[in-house]
């Protein structure tokens, strides 16, 4: 086990990305000539405390364009101090310089997710309420039995995340995390099925329902991988992350700006976000592979990132 994990700041790589000597693919940077991976982008716990609360009010990536910083600052007026706005600005600029600004809206794991289960639960609750409202009003094609099943699964997910947030006080939290990872795998499979169903419905896809279900699926997968990393089951986390990446490629890759029921120009933001999310999901196994290869303890890794108080985004250089 290597207990000392050294990070760098994304700004250190910006010039090289701009000059083209480094290429950004999803959540990693690789050398343009040798093709070797140079560094992995990694969010810290600060990222979530900075924009997590504000983003709970954002229902889709539609409202986020290039002026993400000012929009977020506006959303968060009254929430942020001057220092926090600066940190937020640095974070968004970092994401923009790496051309993945839309990830701010998903906040579900640039690198290993360190969102924390309490935040995840808040997020689930927000999604749950919106889906509930949608099912009651605008969604056609869902039979009442299907609505009831969906609601039941949302409640189950909420319960599982609550258990995850309480697991750390157990004498043996690893066993609990393993159990939660298993249950989340089942829930992720369910929500993947629901998304498939929504995508196969006749006509244009209901954008809001799709986005809420997609968020739930992403959060389930994020918690699954998170739990496996906390139990230091990195080899298994790698397999799970590979499967998740493939599933996002399959689910989201077929969608275009014209697939949804909204204006094509606005839907293009959603599509960009989905492509970014997919790329990050597909490159995440490379980060886990690196942690595994260097014998970095998963639990230590998550703990260190969770307690970072200065920088929302970090780079893990590849030795």
């Amino acid at each position, binding site marked *: *086990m*290597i*207990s*000392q*994990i*050294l*990070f*760098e*700041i994304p700004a*250190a790589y910006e010039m090289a990305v701009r000059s083209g000597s480094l*290429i950004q*693919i*999803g959540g*990693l940077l*690789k050398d343009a000539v040798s*093709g*070797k*991976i140079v560094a992995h982008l990694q969010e*810290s716990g600060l990222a979530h405390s900075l924009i997590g609360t504000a983003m709970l009010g954002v229902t889709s990536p539609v409202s986020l364009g290039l002026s993400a910083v000012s929009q977020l600052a506006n959303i968060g007026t009254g929430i942020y101090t001057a220092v926090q706005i600066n940190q937020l600005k640095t974070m968004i600029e970092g994401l923009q310089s790496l051309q993945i600004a839309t990830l701010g809206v998903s906040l579900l794991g640039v690198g290993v997710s360190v969102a924390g289960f309490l935040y995840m639960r808040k997020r689930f609750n927000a999604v749950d309420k919106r889906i509930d409202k949608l099912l009651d009003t605008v969604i056609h094609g869902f039979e009442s039995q299907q609505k009831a099943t969906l609601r039941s699964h949302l409640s189950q997910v909420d319960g599982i995340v609550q258990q995850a947030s309480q697991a750390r006080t157990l004498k043996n939290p690893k066993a609990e995390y393993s159990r939660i990872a298993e249950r989340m795998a089942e829930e992720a499979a369910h929500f993947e099925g629901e998304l498939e169903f929504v995508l196969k419905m006749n006509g244009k896809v209901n954008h809001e329902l799709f986005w809420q279900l997609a968020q739930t699926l992403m959060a389930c997968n994020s918690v699954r991988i998170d739990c496996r990393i906390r139990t230091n089951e990195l080899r298994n986390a*790698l397999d799970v992350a590979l499967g998740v990446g493939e599933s996002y*490629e*399959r689910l989201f*890759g*077929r969608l*275009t*700006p*014209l697939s949804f029921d909204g204006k*094509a*120009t606005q839907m*293009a933001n959603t*599509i*960009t976000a989905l*492509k970014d999310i997919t*790329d990050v999901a*597909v*490159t995440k*196994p*490379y980060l886990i*592979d*690196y942690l*595994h*290869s*260097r*014998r970095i*303890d998963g639990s*230590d890794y998550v*703990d*260190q*990132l*969770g*307690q*970072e*108080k*200065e*920088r929302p985004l*970090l780079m893990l250089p590849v*030795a």
Partner: protein
Amino acid sequence: MKEPFRRMIAFFRCNIRSFFKSSPAKGISCTASNPSGHDSQHHDAVDSFATEQNLWGFTADAIPPLPLLLDPARLDRLAFRRQVLDWRDDSILKINQCADRVLKEFSAHIVTMLKAVPIWRRCVWPKSTSEIIFHDFNRFVRWPIQHEAQLSENRIKEIYDRRKLRETSVRRFNYEWADSPLNCIEQIGFRPSNEAKIIVAISHIVQGDQGLSDNFHRQIIGICAAVIGDRNFD
């Protein structure tokens, strides 16, 4: 004998370190915060430990890393896939925007033309709409959309060229229409009283299902699927 001995020492040193709560070293450009919240005194201890390690020439990295399980070469496929998907979405969006714009312009043109229809043509024997608008439709609608498609075709060619991939026929658009799209308005007389009917029919020809714009969208998705070699787009 020297190397195994060095490894054995490194192994024991790492294990001894694992009894302590992990903490980052001081003086590194950026490290994650110390999870245990230890004070600077502890940092100093870690520093001296690190220095001692360096003096001895051992670090925790002395244990050889496990082999990587994933091949970084696969990332090229991912980058290429992203480029093609971006091309697909950008092309669809541009053709869609172009179709919206020309449709708006052409609808206004139709209204102007309808106002100019002579009185006697309005009452008896109005000419067929398809006959009247054929050339203007091509000039105002069809050619601009095809031009946008041509630009899109050039962009996918650039992706191919940049990647030094062999040019294939899959990226070619088919600009031909099996049937004249204007057949459906052949029966509509070109007179002001049919204005709404004509506008709706033309909107359908341009933006409707199987319309001019949709025809290119389908082709773009098909090309994308063929280029990526991905069955998810079926």
